[in-house]
Structure formats: structure tokens, C-alpha cells
């Protein structure tokens, strides 16, 4: 499964970069979202994969019973997901605003803020 995940990560990165290099600003944002997904998966893959054993401590016990999934990447990704949401939300609204102000979605034409 690790190999499959590595392939998924590679494909997501490729798709993200392809979208980001487009001249359309909406594609740029979708590419940005894809880049976030790819990075999260990358971090997730850095800990050893463990099937179906979340890092929880059972009632009465003081330490979790191994094997359990690595909690550290999970904590990092949790933060990343939420921050990603903030960034994407802001970017979407910004693009909408830019489009309404300037009337184009071509990044190459966005050279001035005047209408």
C-alpha cells in the first residue's frame, strides 16, 4: 500500500502543478487545493501505516497498546487541513472579487488593479 500511496501522491502533485501553471485563475486555485491534499497525504505517509488502530488510550490503561497509528503526523495534518480551508476560502473570495473588479480571469492580463 505504501507504493500505491506514493503513486497517488505523485499523481496529485503532478495534477496540482499542472493546474497551477494554467493561465486561468480558477484553475490556479483548484491546483492549490490539490497541492494541499497531496502534501497532507505526504505527511501522513511519513509515519508507518497501521490499519484500523487509532492512537487511543483505553479506559483504565495509561499507555496505548501497540501497534497503533502514529499520532504525530495526524496532529500535523489536522492543523494543515484547517489552515488549508482558511487559505482556500480566502483565495476563492479574493478571486471572485478580482474577477468582478477587473473583468478577466487571465493571470497574464492581471497587470494592474485599474479597471
Amino acid at each position, binding site marked *: 500500500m505504501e507504493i500505491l500511496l506514493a503513486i497517488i501522491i505523485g499523481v496529485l502533485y503532478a495534477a496540482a502543478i499542472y493546474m497551477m501553471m494554467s493561465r486561468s485563475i480558477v484553475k490556479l486555485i483548484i491546483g492549490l487545493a490539490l497541492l494541499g491534499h497531496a502534501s497532507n497525504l505526504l505527511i*501522513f505517509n511519513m509515519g508507518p501505516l497501521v490499519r484500523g488502530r487509532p492512537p487511543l488510550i483505553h479506559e483504565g490503561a495509561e*499507555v496505548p497498546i501497540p501497534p497503533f497509528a502514529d499520532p504525530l503526523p495526524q496532529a500535523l495534518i489536522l492543523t494543515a487541513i484547517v489552515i488549508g480551508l482558511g487559505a482556500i476560502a480566502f483565495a476563492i473570495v479574493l478571486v471572485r472579487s478580482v474577477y468582478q473588479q477587473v473583468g478577466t480571469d487571465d493571470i497574464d492580463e492581471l497587470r494592474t488593479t485599474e479597471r
Partner: protein
Amino acid sequence: MVLIISGIGTLIFIYAGGYLQGDPRIGRFYVMILIFMAAMLGVVLADSLLLLFVFWELTSISSFLLIGFNHESEQSRRSAQQALLVTGSGGLALLAGLILLATAGGSWQISVLLHQQTAVTTSPLYLPALILILLGAFTKSAQFPFHFWLPNAMAAPTPVSAYLHSATMVKAGVYLLARLHPVLGGTGEWFYGLVIVGGITAVLGGYLSWWQTDLKRIMAYSTVSALGVLVLLLGIGTKIAVEAAMLFLLVHSLYKGGLFMAAGAIDHETGTRNVRRLAGLARQMPFVFVGITLASLSMAGIPPLLGFIGKELIYEATLEPETAVWQLLLTALALLTNIFLVAASGVIVIKPFLGQPNEDTVQPHHPAGLSLWLGPLLLGLLSLGLGLFSNSTLVAKWLLQPAATAVYGHDLVLKLGLWHGLTPMLLLSGVTIAAGAGVWWLHERWRQGVMAVDAALAPRLGPEALYDRGFDGLLRLADWLTVRVQDGFLRHYLLWIVGTTVVLVGTALLRGKTAVMPSQDLIPGPNEILLTLVILGAAWMVVQADSRLAAVAGLGVIGYSMALIFILYGAPDLAMTQFSVETLTVILFVLVLYKLPTFETKDSTPTRLRNVVVSLLVGAMMTGLVLAANAIPASTHVTDFYSENSYVLAKGHNIVNVILVDFRGLDTMVEITVLSVAAVGVYALIHTRKQQQETAVEERRSES
């Protein structure tokens, strides 16, 4: 050395108070000079090579700030930049050299390295390390061909020139060479490198000094010359040469600090530093006169001042090498240098102080205050006193012997004295003084000619002209590169960044010898294979989509599939967050979707083809990177800490939650702040738009 830094530093402090009296920037001045003092003490006291380097750079930076103290003057700014660039690039070389040295010697501690001489000098890294360290030391100590920044640095206020650019900072290079002499010294490369560069610098500095008309420039070039002598002596590296170097270091700091302060006092009182316009100051400024005379006599090496003993020792050192050629050459170099220095000291004192005033000369506005003459006088008296009592234990045994021993690397006993009997050294001293007086006698007549030669040669051959050309070239290169790399197209920026990463990481991956297969590979079940196919299909859908809705739908599919992966591999918290965030994102997209432009293919086919190739390369690189990273077992000690302590310390059953809200609680708080800022931004963007629409509607109404 510490004594020099703190002692002269104190006098400079008193002196600067008088020199900059009433200047509103005096506070800034004190701050900067204190920073410098601390940094300089750090250089001298540091035992770790890296620490030494950090302080070394700090002295460069504070020197830059102090030279550019009169930041309104173009000349000051240029000199400051020049000094920073020259010493800074030398500093880079030094850093590389120190790293090589530490690699060769196996330690970062100078105290350890001192016992590693054989290991270091036989190492293949010795020559590059030596060259780089010499570059650092030579730029700092203004050795040929880097000497040009020092006279220009005289744009700094005089207290700074007196302190940084004669007594202390420029000695840092010499200090470094002295400190590392037991490790690096004793080889042919060391001898030739130091003797040749030091010799050229000594003679050139001396030659450039005596015909200048600006008091401070005379002193600056004689400083360059003195630094050359020091490097030369360290290059010879025998017992006597090291003793001579340490003594001369002290001698020079004493007299040059005094000379500069006296020059500053003259400048302050008369408004000029041009020796042609100064005359007969002895009556108006008696204390400065005594101070500057003592200092100049010491510089000229006239008994019974300390400078005389210093000069005797230098001659003794240059007469020491075994081959007659070197004896002759070195002695000739030293003789020539000293003749020039004698002439220069004559120029400094005789005309400005004893000459007959005429209509061209300027009279002082008022007598110099206590703080202005105290420094020069004290340093002058010190030169005299230490010279008279040079055979006392204080000077020889306590001040110089430990320093010389440390530099030489073996124990030695130092004996100084005014009278050694009739020796070749005494004869040479006599010749020096006589010839120096001769040069002084003729200097007015020769000056015109020498200046004409200098004006003809300097713009074409001088190192400063080369520096200027190099600087212009650098700027042009930067322009050229910037226009090409940052051409204003966002995609091209991305292309450069991504391209560089792929090339660098890709090369490393391809050349790496690590296995590229993961250390563990779970056999994927049918559901996992299906999930993989779904994600790959969705990615294809996003890339291919003609409509915005299809692309957003594909993005949503990828997001939800990721949540499924999180569930499968024991991350329910992640899955929950991913589900809700993905839902929100899709909703957000759909809400504003119809206010967004439709998809059009704007790029030409070749461009798209290029993009495809680049993207595929990035994807391949990332896959390779993940596989290579997985091949290395991850370190688990952080994870172990969290899982062992999450209940014990934080009383939480869910380790991920405990990490977020407890162990890394501050991070989470900052994250919340970021989210709030984003929310405020979103709100503001929507709101401004609404307001603009409302005002537009109102305007239209009022028009109709």
C-alpha cells in the same frame, strides 16, 4: 589584545564625548561603538572557530554602520558599502576556510587545534583552508590588494578611525593569523604567502602615506603599512619575529590611536585636515602637540620611545633568515617601509605645528577641550613611559611574553632594552632616520610629481578601479538575471521554483545509493485498490475538466477519498475534519461558482505540452522522494514521548487531541488566529464589494 581594546576604547569614549559634542546622534554613536567593542572582545576571547566567525562578522557590520555614520554624505555611504563588501566577502572565505580547518584538525576548539599542527599541515585540505583563511584575514587587515577600503573608511568620524581602523578592528586579521600561527604556520606556503603580501603592503602603504595632504589619509596609509609589517613578521614566524610582531602590535596601537585622536582634535578645532593649510598650532594646542609629537616620534622609531625598540626588534627579525637573499630582501623591505614612516611622521608634526602661519593657513576657533587632548597625550606618554621602562618586568614579562608564547607555540623568554650595544640594528635605525628625514625634506617638492603619477595610474591599475568595475558588473549581472527569472508572469516564477527543485532533488535521488523501496509494504486489499483508482480517476477528471463544476466535483471526490484513507489507517479525527472541511470547500466553490469565470483553454498547445512535461516530472520526483523517505525507518522518539505521557501528564485518552490542545496548545491557538484573520479577510472582501455596489446604485439614482 584585550587590554588594547578596553584601554583605548575607554579613551575613545572620553574623546568621542568632546568630538561629537552637541551632535544629536551621539547616542546612536555610543550604541554602535559599544556593539563593536563587545564584538571585538568576542573575536579575541572566543575559543570556538564558529563563535569567532560570528563575532568577526559582527565587527564588520558595526564597522559598516560606523563608517556610514554621516549617512547623508554620498562618500560615506560608498565607503561604508565598500568596506562591508570587501570585509564581508573575505568573511565568507574565512568561514569556508575555518570549516575546512575544523575538518582537517577534527575539532572546532582553537585550544584543541593548537596541538594538531602535524595533522592539519599534512592534510590535503591544508592548502585550500590556508588560502581561504588568509583571504579573510587579508581583507580584514587591509592587505594588498584589498588595502583600498581602509583609507576610504576614513569617512567615519575620527574616534571611529582611531579605534576601529587603526587600533583594533583591522588588527583582527593579524590577530587571527597570530592565533592560528601554531596550527597553520611553519610551512613554505605560510611563509611565502604572508611575507610576499605583507611585504608589498608594508612598502606600498608607506609609499602612499607620505605625500598625502589629508592628515587622516596619511595615517590610514601608514596603518596599512604597519599592518603589512605585522603580517610580514608573522610570516617569518621565528621567535624574534613573533616577539617583534607582538611588540609592534602594541606600539602601533598606542601611537596610531593617539595620532588619530590628535588629527580629530585638529579637525574639530580648525575645520580642516589638510596639512598645507595648517601651521603653527603648537602654541594654540600645546597638549595635543605634546601628544602628537610623542606618538609621531614613536612611529618614526626614535629613542627612547617604545617605537624604537619595536623597530630594533623588526630589524633583528628580518636579519635572521638563513639565506642571504631573504635577509637582504626582508631587511630592504623593512628599511624602505620605515623610511617612509619616518617621513610621514615628519609631515604630520613639523609643518602643522611648528611651521610659520601665513595667509593660507587656518587658525583654530578655540583651544581643544580636556576630553580632546587627554587621549592623545595619555597614549603619547604611555609610548614614552613603556619605552623608558621597557626592561622592566611589566612590559616584557607580563604584557608581551604571554602573547608571544601563545603565538609562537613554545615557551620563550622575552628581553627588551633600549641599548643593545653597537649592532647592525642600531646602524639600520640610524640609516632609517637619516633617510626618512631626507624624504621629508624633499616631500613638498616631490609631492607634485608623485601625485601626477598616481592620478595617471590609479584609475586604470588600482585595485579600487577593479573593485568598481567588478561592482558594476555584478549589478549588471543581477539586472540581467532578474529580468529573466522574474519576468512578471506568475507561471514562470512557479516554473523556475519547481524546475530548480526537480533538478536538485532529482539529481540527489538518482545519485543516492539508498534503497528506494519502502521498508514495509502492506498488501493492499481490494477496497484500497478501488480507492486508489477512484483518486487517480478524479485527478484525471480535474485536469481534463471543461467545466468548473466537473473540476470542483473531482476535487471533492479526491478530498472524500482521502478521508476514507484516513479512516482505514487509524485516523478517525482526521477523517472527520477532512469530511467537514471538504464539504465546506465544495459548498463555497459552488456558491461562488457562477460568479466565477468559465473555463477556457487559454494556453497554446506547446505551452500546455511543456506544462504537462514539467508536472509529470514533479510527480515522478515526489513519488521517488516518498519511496526513498519510506525506505528509512522513521525516528519514533517524539511519538513515544507523546503516547507515553498523553494520559500520565495530560489525562487525555485521545493522543492526537492531547497533542493539539495540550502539548502544542500554543500552535493551535496561533492556528485559530490565522483562521480568524482569514475569516475577517473573507468578510471584508465581500462587504467592500457590497458597499461599492450600493454606492454605485445610489449614484445612478441621483443621476436619474
